[in-house]
């Protein structure tokens, strides 16, 4: 039984990988960006766990910056994805402009809170 589960996992992984290569390039860029942002957030949390949360506002703003930009990137991905029927009428350029604007506002707030 264990071996079939292990085999199933490997099969699942291979099928996901092949499916993923079929995604358009711009979506892969966005996925990479999200991975980058989330990993930055994780490293910051690990650092805080090690040294304590003394300037707590700085920690919060750092983590929220990474997580926020990841969230906005996810929204962008949803809007730009051609297979998503809901956002058919929304041009990708418009979605991109929204992404940029929201990021700028987020970072203004983050910089203010950074202290």
């Amino acid at each position, binding site marked *: 039984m264990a071996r079939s589960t292990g085999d199933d996992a490997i099969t699942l992984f291979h099928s996901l990988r092949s499916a993923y290569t079929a995604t358009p390039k711009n979506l892969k860029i966005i996925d*990479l960006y999200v991975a980058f*942002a989330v*990993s*930055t957030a994780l490293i910051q949390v690990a650092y805080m766990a090690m*040294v304590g949360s003394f300037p707590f506002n700085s920690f919060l703003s750092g983590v929220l910056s990474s997580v926020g930009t990841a969230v906005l990137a996810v929204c962008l991905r949803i809007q730009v994805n051609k297979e998503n029927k809901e956002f058919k009428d929304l041009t990708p*350029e*418009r979605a991109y402009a929204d992404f940029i604007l929201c990021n*700028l506002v987020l970072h203004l707030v983050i910089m203010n809170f950074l202290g």
Partner: protein
Amino acid sequence: MATGRRSGSRGDAIVLLLLIVAAGSIYTNATNFQPVSDSHRSAAVEIFTPVDGSFESIEETYEAVQTFKILGIEAKPDVRVTACTSVSEVLGASSSPLKELFYALKVSSLLKCDGSQFEATASRLKSIPSNAKSLNDLYYSIAALVLIKNQSPEADVLLDDADGVFQAIKALSQSDGRWRYSSDNPASSTYAAGMALEALAGVISLATKDIGKSRINVVKSDILKLFDSIEKYDDGTFYFDDKSGTVSSLATTSSVVQGVTAFASAASGTLNLPEDKILGLTKYFLSIGIPGDAKEFFNQVNSVSCLENSRVSIPLILTLPATVISLTKKDKLKVKVTTALSSRSPPLSVKVVSASISGSKDVSVIENQELVFDEEGALHVLDLPASIDVGKYIFVFEIVFHNSKDGKIYAPGGQTKVPVHVSGTIKIEKFEISVLDSDVGSIDTQKQLNFETENDVSLDANHLQKLRLSFQLSTPQGNAFKPHQAILKLKHEKAEHIFMIGNSGKHFQVILDFLGLVEKFFYLSGRYDIQLTVGDTVMENSFYQAIGHVELDLPEAPEKAPRPPLQSVDPFLRYGAKGEISHIFRSPEKRPPENLSLAFLVLTLLPFLGFLVGLLKLGLNLKNFPSASVPAMFAILFHVGIGAILSLYALFWLKMDLFTTLKTLSLLGAFAMFVGHRILSHVASSSSKLKSA
């Protein structure tokens, strides 16, 4: 013999306290009141000084002029001119308040100013009393009309409805003798009672028909009820207090005195006020001495003058110009009897009923002795009997009139008690100092002292011996005398010690047993200066003398001996800088070691590098970058704009504040939005063209 006296300071304090308590109880009811005199006149000139020739208000002008008149001071001519000018100004103005008209008329009657405006003023004022609702209005209008009547008798000022006005004023009275200010104000006041009585007196003098006797008797009984509420101090002075607290007791008492004396003069028949209260009121005013305030001065002098000139009994004040009589100078006892304003008294003689030492139950030294009248000084003089001794006495005086009728007009006030000090020279005899061997008491050294000249004896003693100082004090009559202070002081370089000298009868002696005092002296050997103080208020030759010194040999101080008290610190040190205070701050938070932080900084930047690498691996390209010049420029500008905004954020974190950042951001943001809109719409349109094509 008891071991020497303990440190004298505590004993000294107890003696002092007892003396103060005794003095307090002796001197109640025994005080010396001075009547109004020349020092009052010079003070009045100083206090009532006009500024640039005129006073601040017409009220102050009146107070100054009236005070000068009572004291007999001539007002300067320019003061008179300016005062009369302000009077005619006030009388001429049609809107002057009643109070100012009243004061203006008062000044005019004192200075005899020109009376041409009286008719007009009288016609203005005549209708007010019948319609007035408040006590103030009634008082000022009636008083003003009376003043006009006194100055120009032909003016039409008489009240037709005097009875009605009288009743209106009476209606405001209370059952305890006080008065209310108006019918809607329930608060009553003694000050208002004085005003009301004066107003009633004014009504009586302005009435065309006589006011009924019954009405006047009702007011007289009101006055007696008012006098029931009089208050008293221990020294025999009486005063009135206004319970409302807004008016001082001096002003209240002045108001009542003015009102009562005015009513007594205006009303027919007699007003029987108790004599001791009249005298007590006069003494109250005199007890102030010379007031420093203009208003108090006026109240004092005016009230005293009212009492003196009234139909109620005139008080007589008995004073002693000097309360210390010296036996050595053979002073005589001098007594002065005058009225409160220092005018002459009727023919009378003064008798000393008794004179005894205060606080003792001894028989009095003088009994019923009459004083001789000295015409030139207007004083009553007595030679003190030869047997009188020094001390603090209380003399009791009594006044006897030569004319028995004077007894009804004047109020001498029964017996007056005055404290008198009789001082003299005290004889000191058998003044000697000696060093004795202890236990046996045999004399080691003995020196005679002379207290008239300086002494400088030099003695030696050790801790096994005693020091004895003794003398005898006697009064001029040869009696024993106990001075207030008899103190011996031994002064060393580092410490000083004080001892009281006790007595038995005439003999004063103090014995210092060094064996018992070794510890008190802090085991300090060396030279001790000896100082003696003997003094009293009735001793004319009190002295403080350095007698000499004694070389004292005391044993060594053991380990635990008390140290002498430290010398006083240099005053500059006391006010110098104090020690530094170290503040305890909140301990700073633990920060991670720098290396760890730097390592994590690098670690955080790694994902970014990973992102860039991934982008390259994915094959990021710039194929869609517009090639035509205008869109290209817009594209570049768009990226520049975003870069500028991000660098603005960096600058914001580093040094700028939010408001300047927002200002710049709004500019940059608008720019970036404009440019971005252009380029993105261009890209969108080109991609849609591509799609459709």
